[in-house]
């Protein structure tokens, strides 16, 4: 059954192609069937493959399928080949399954949109690229998927292209992630030049045997790959594109900008964990980036008014947790958090989408309110998702995964009190902004009347995801055992904290945030207004609201100089050399033709004078 692997990316790709070509002439129902059906088949195949893989694992713990040799130049022979091990299996199953649910949701959400077939074509192409990224056997194919998902992200953010702002947001996302991709491409050059291959498994073995720990090549390669990862996963310093990416349709935000694509960086680092282990400074940098990002994004989330932007910042923050886990060597914990995050964050966006559609595409949370009774499905699913995000102890999946990360940080040789404190502070922040959102949107007075209630295609995926957000984290032990076949074990430092201690700390942090939000937004709403009203609060609010001023900073530092340089040299400076030559010739012509007066006597005088001068030269020189 494993031989069916190639179909998992191939079917969505084929249907994307079909929809792109035939879509405009198909009826909406046909588009929905093709678009969603292809992902359903793909998800079903990946489940079958998962069953086979778990039932009878391949001897080496991995299965490789080579379709054809892609490029063939000397020793550089990357193939179109897929590599299935526990890591890529988990990711693929989660991605295809969540994608299927979100496609199903989109059937109703996007109904009546003039770009219906275009939407499904892009979404299918995204799934194909994402699965290619996950299953790629070499880094070049991974790079293909990597850029492919970036492309789909761009296309879908700018899906409603008639509003120029959407297009600009898409462009920003593509360019910012491509900054990281450029670093990653250079990383590939480093790896190929020094190790002579791009096949991931061969690379890892070669790196292990050829590079000592801390070697400068390993550090360079890992740092460059990290550059790609922070771009795609919206981590510091390249996180600025993700909040703007919310301009896309909500299912897109759920699928690409929350559940799947943005975790590609996490996957890349986990996949190439050997390199990061060989480069301890870079691995520590991963942890620091994660910790810093989760705090910064948490603060920014506190101040946002747009429901989707709050969720976007929470995504950045949660991926920060994954990076933190990767940085301390808890590879399995990061992937575990990826999975639970995929469930609850997709759920939150789907529920938010229900709310947004119910209120005539209203995004501002302060124009919402009291929706608890009006949209009970949205409320309950959002509540479950929110609890999972904030980490309601002992019940939700998010709690287990986040707790595992905190415990790993506390017990890793690379971890430390600072990182742990950041992680726990992050829990307080997460809980605070999540419940701020819930209280403002679903409690209090009704601000806007509900005009549209969700149909079955929107409710069912949300309910399934809500179920998974709760139970997804229960079987931590067997999940870890599975991942340990593909990823190195977590190395525990002696004398760390006990699991109970970190669990209690995380639980307390959750309730601290919950209580604070309750007090500031339900019990005594004037408090939050007062806090934001005084000058210091206003300044801080503006600072956090604008994402710590990073957009402003980049605008001044990079965008304006480039735009200025481009517009200044629009007329091509080099051409002025040739224009100069041409005008010099014209000038000579002007000067000489001025002697051509038409006056006969002048000519005669010139002849006479010229003869005299010539004779003089001949006679005396």
């Amino acid at each position: 059954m494993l031989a069916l692997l190639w179909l998992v990316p191939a079917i969505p790709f084929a249907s994307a192609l079909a929809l792109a070509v035939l879509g405009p002439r198909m009826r909406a129902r046909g588009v929905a069937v093709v678009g969603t059906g292809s992902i359903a088949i793909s998800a079903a195949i990946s489940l079958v493959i998962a069953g086979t893989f778990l039932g009878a694992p391949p001897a080496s713990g991995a299965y490789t399928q080579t379709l054809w040799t892609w490029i063939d130049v000397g020793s550089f022979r990357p193939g179109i080949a897929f590599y299935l091990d526990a890591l890529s299996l988990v990711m693929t199953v989660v991605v295809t399954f969540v994608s299927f649910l979100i496609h199903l949701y989109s059937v109703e959400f996007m109904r009546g949109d003039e770009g219906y077939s275009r939407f499904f074509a892009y979404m299918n192409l995204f799934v194909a690229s994402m699965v290619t990224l996950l299953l790629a056997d070499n880094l070049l194919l991974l790079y293909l998927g990597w850029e492919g998902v970036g492309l789909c992200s761009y296309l879908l953010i700018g899906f409603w292209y008639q509003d120029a702002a959407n297009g600009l947001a898409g462009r920003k996302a593509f360019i910012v992630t491509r900054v990281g991709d450029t670093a990653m491409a250079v990383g590939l050059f480093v790896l190929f030049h020094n190790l002579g291959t791009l096949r991931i498994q061969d690379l890892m073995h070669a790196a292990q045997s050829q590079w000592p720990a801390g070697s400068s090549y390993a550090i360079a390669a890992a740092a460059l790959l990290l550059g790609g990862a922070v771009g795609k996963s919206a981590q510091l310093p390249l996180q600025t594109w993700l909040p703007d990416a919310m301009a896309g349709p909500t299912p897109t935000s759920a699928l690409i900008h929350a559940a799947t694509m943005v975790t590609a960086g996490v996957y890349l680092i986990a996949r190439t964990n050997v390199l990061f282990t060989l480069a301890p400074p870079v691995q520590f940098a991963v942890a620091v980036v994660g910790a810093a990002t989760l705090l910064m994004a948490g603060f920014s989330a506190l101040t946002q008014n747009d429901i989707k932007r709050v969720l976007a910042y929470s995504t950045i923050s949660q991926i920060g947790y994954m990076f933190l886990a990767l940085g301390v060597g808890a590879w399995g914990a990061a992937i575990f958090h990826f999975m639970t995050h995929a469930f609850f964050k997709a759920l939150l966006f789907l529920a938010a989408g229900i709310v947004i559609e119910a209120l005539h595409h209203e995004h501002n949370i302060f124009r919402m309110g009291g929706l608890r009774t009006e949209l009970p499905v949205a409320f309950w699913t959002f509540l479950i998702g929110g609890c999972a995000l904030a980490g309601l102890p002992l019940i939700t999946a998010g709690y287990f995964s986040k707790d595992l990360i905190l415990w790993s940080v506390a017990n890793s040789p690379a971890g430390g009190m600072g990182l742990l404190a950041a992680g726990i502070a992050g829990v307080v922040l997460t809980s605070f902004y999540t419940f701020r959102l819930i209280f403002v949107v679903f409690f209090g007075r009704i601000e806007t009347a509900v005009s549209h209630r969700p149909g079955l295609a929107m409710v069912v995926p949300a309910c399934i995801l809500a179920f998974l957000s709760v139970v997804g984290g229960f079987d931590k032990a067997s999940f870890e055992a599975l991942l340990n076949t593909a990823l190195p074990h977590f190395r525990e430092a002696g004398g760390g904290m006990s699991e109970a201690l970190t669990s209690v700390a995380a639980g307390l942090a959750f309730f601290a945030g919950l209580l604070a939000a309750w007090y500031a937004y339900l019990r005594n709403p004037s408090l939050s207004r007062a806090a934001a009203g005084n000058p210091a609060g206003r300044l801080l609010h503006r600072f956090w609201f604008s994402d710590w001023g990073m957009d402003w900073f980049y605008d001044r530092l990079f965008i304006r100089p480039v735009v200025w340089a481009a517009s200044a040299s629009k007329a091509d400076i080099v051409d002025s050399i040739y224009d100069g030559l041409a005008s010099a010739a014209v000038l000579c012509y002007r000067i000489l033709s001025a002697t051509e007066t038409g006056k006969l006597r002048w000519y005669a005088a010139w002849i006479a004078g010229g003869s005299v001068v010539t004779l003089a030269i001949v006679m005396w020189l």
Partner: protein
Amino acid sequence: MFPIREGFMISGALFTLGVIGVLARRNLLFVLMSIEVMLNAAGMAFVVAGARWRQPDGQVMFLFILAMAAAEVSVGLALVLELYHQFKTLDTDAISRMRG
């Protein structure tokens, strides 16, 4: 000894007079006449040189110059006539349509 020095001085003076005539006179007829003077100056130089070396070539050359001058004058006068028809003047400075 043949006074070659004086002969050449006269011819040079004649030639200079011709040049001055060409440059100074604006009437085309006078310009033509000045050119004749210059031609004769050159012819005189030939004759003087031929006499000095006792060669007939100088006088042959002078005959040749005479013939050429006649041809030149006939063409030149025809042109002058035509120019007068066109421009109603013989002032060379006024006839300056061929400028750059």
